[in-house]
C-alpha cells in the first residue's frame, strides 16, 4: 500500500469505538506551473484528493471539454485529433464496490481555485524492466509506481485549444504530474520506477520523459505500456537540480 501522509482517528461505522482510518487529506504542497498567457511561473498547490472529490472535477471539466470538442468539430477538426480521453469519467475511475480506494493515491494540481491536472497512481505492480532497460527475467522484487490515469484540465489542452486559436491557461501541468510520480517513486524507495499504459496521443509525451515502450497488449485496449527505469528517472530528477 502507498504510504499516506496522515493517520486520523475517526468513529467506526457502528459509532461505538474509535478506529484508525487512513484519510487522504494531506496538506497541500506548493508546486510551480507555467502561466500559458504570460509564460511566468505560478505557484500552484499539489493536493491529495479522495474519491469523493472526483465527481466535482467532472462537474468542472466536462462542460468545458464538451463545448471545446463541439467547437473543434464545427471547425472541421477530424475525430482522430480530438482528445482520446474525452469520455473519461473521473468519478467512476475508482469504484469502491470493486476496488479498494486505499490502494490508490489521487494527486491534483490546483491553481486559481480549479484543478489544473489530475493523476491516479497505485503501487500494486512489479516493474517489467531491469535496471538496464531489458526485460527482467528474474522474480526479484521491483515495485513500481503505476500511473492509472493522468490528465490535465481541458482548458490546458494545447492541441485541442490550438484548433480554435486559443492558448492553454497553464502549461507543463502534465510534466509536473509526471515529476510527482517520479518523486513519489523515489520517496517510496522504488528508485524512480514508474509505469503506465499510454493513450496513443500521449505516447510521444512519455517518450520525451525517457520512458521505454513495450508491446501493445490486447487485454489493455491495445495500449502501449511504458516504463521509466531508474537511470532515466535519475535524469528527470537530476534535471531538477
Amino acid at each position: 500500500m502507498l504510504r499516506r501522509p496522515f493517520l486520523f482517528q475517526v468513529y467506526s461505522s457502528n459509532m461505538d469505538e474509535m478506529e484508525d482510518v487512513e484519510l487522504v487529506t494531506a496538506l497541500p504542497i506548493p508546486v510551480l506551473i507555467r502561466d500559458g498567457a504570460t509564460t511566468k511561473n505560478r505557484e500552484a498547490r499539489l493536493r491529495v484528493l479522495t474519491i469523493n472529490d472526483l465527481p466535482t472535477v467532472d462537474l468542472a471539466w466536462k462542460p468545458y471539454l464538451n463545448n471545446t470538442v463541439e467547437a473543434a468539430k464545427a471547425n472541421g477538426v477530424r475525430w482522430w485529433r480530438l482528445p482520446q480521453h474525452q469520455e473519461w469519467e473521473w468519478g467512476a475511475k475508482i469504484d469502491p464496490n470493486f476496488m479498494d480506494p486505499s490502494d490508490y493515491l489521487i494527486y491534483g494540481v490546483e491553481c486559481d481555485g480549479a484543478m489544473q491536472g489530475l493523476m491516479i497512481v497505485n503501487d500494486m505492480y512489479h516493474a517489467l524492466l531491469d535496471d538496464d532497460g531489458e526485460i527482467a527475467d528474474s522474480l526479484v522484487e521491483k515495485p513500481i509506481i503505476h500511473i492509472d490515469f493522468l490528465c490535465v484540465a481541458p482548458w490546458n489542452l494545447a492541441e485541442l485549444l490550438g484548433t480554435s486559436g486559443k492558448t492553454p491557461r497553464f502549461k507543463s501541468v502534465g510534466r509536473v504530474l509526471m515529476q510527482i510520480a517520479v518523486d513519489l517513486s523515489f520517496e517510496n524507495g522504488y528508485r524512480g520506477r514508474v509505469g503506465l499504459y499510454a493513450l496513443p496521443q500521449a505516447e510521444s509525451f512519455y517518450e520525451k520523459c525517457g520512458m521505454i515502450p513495450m508491446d501493445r497488449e490486447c487485454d489493455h485496449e491495445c495500449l502501449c505500456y511504458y516504463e521509466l527505469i531508474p537511470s532515466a528517472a535519475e535524469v528527470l530528477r537530476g534535471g531538477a537540480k
Partner: protein
Amino acid sequence: MKPLTKTSVTPELLEAWAEQDHAGPSTGAGACCLSHQVKAMQPKPRSHMRLRKSRVLPVEHLGVAGVQPLVEA
C-alpha cells in the same frame, strides 16, 4: 516511510521543459534522455504485468457490490 512533502519541480526545470517544447517533440527531455529515445524506437516484447498484491477485496466488500459471498459448509 516519509510522505511526499515536496517536489523536485524547480523554475529551472520549467524553463527546460519550455525550451524543449519549443524545440519540437523529437528532442526529448534533455540530451541525457536521447539514448532512451533511441531505445524507445523499438518497442520491447513483454510479459504480463505481475501483481504485487491481490486485487481481491475482502469478503465484506462483496456484499456492498450486491454479490453474495460463498460460504464454506
